[in-house]
């Protein structure tokens, strides 16, 4: 069945642009940079189209490359000496969050302050609804490390939320 599937680039962009863009935005914390990353990811997909075997393969490939390109973009920024965290704080009030509730916006802000590996694990877990095994495969990291990152990340996020978002969340 996988052999009969013919990838259609435009259709893949339509289906997955929101996923790729969201992963990149949450990883980089910068809308402009996320758009650049998303463009690069799809252009890379175009170069690899002959090797994509199925819709699932395309989805997993896009997730993996989006995470990896976002991490590269963050590294390049750090090398250039841009203070990313200050930038994230500044940019997270942009108009695209209009439809989000204040709690959701604040939670995303707190997420952006987590260490990169923990943030990546939580993004894939809660945005993409992936299991730890799937995350481990996507980011090519041992399962134990992924579970540890999820555990520590969630714990840290809870602690930050306890201090900053007490008025919003009952389950803390």
């Amino acid at each position: 069945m996988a052999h009969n599937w013919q990838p259609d680039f435009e259709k893949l962009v339509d289906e997955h642009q929101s996923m790729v863009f969201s992963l990149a935005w949450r990883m980089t914390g910068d809308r402009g940079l996320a758009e650049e990353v998303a463009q690069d990811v799809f252009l890379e997909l175009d170069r690899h189209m002959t090797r994509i075997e199925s819709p699932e393969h395309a989805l997993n490939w896009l997730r993996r490359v989006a995470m990896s390109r976002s991490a590269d973009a963050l590294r390049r920024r750090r090398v250039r000496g841009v203070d990313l965290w200050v930038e994230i704080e500044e940019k997270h009030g942009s108009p695209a969050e209009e439809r989000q509730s204040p709690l959701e916006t604040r939670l995303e802000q707190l997420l952006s302050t987590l260490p990169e590996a923990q943030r990546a694990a939580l993004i894939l877990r809660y945005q993409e609804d992936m299991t730890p095994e799937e995350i481990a495969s996507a980011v090519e990291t041992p399962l134990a490390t992924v579970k540890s990152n999820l555990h520590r990340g969630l714990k840290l996020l809870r602690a930050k939320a306890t201090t900053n978002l007490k008025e919003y969340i009952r389950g803390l």
Partner: protein
Amino acid sequence: MDFEWPDQPEKFDEFEQELKQAMERRPAPPSLKRRIMQKRSARRTERHHTTMIWWQRLAASLLIAGVIAGGFGYRQIEERRKGEEAKQQVLTALRITNQVLNNMNRKLAEHDKPENGK
């Protein structure tokens, strides 16, 4: 590390539910797809252009190599022709010399005849 990690969404606690809700996929900017398609098209045109340039370079190189080889071949043929021509001229000169010597021999022989008759 000794902890249980829930794999099923229904096991999410209230905080995780909030987190999941906060982390829904964001819609991509409407212009993103257009820009991707434009860049893809530009890249393909560029790639095509680059390929064309390489083909043109290859064709020009082959043409130059052909001209050089042709010139070299022509020179060799011309040299051979000239050599052949020179050889023919030498042979002609030898033939003429031979003829002249034969004539001289014949005249000398005729000149010696009356002496022999005495």
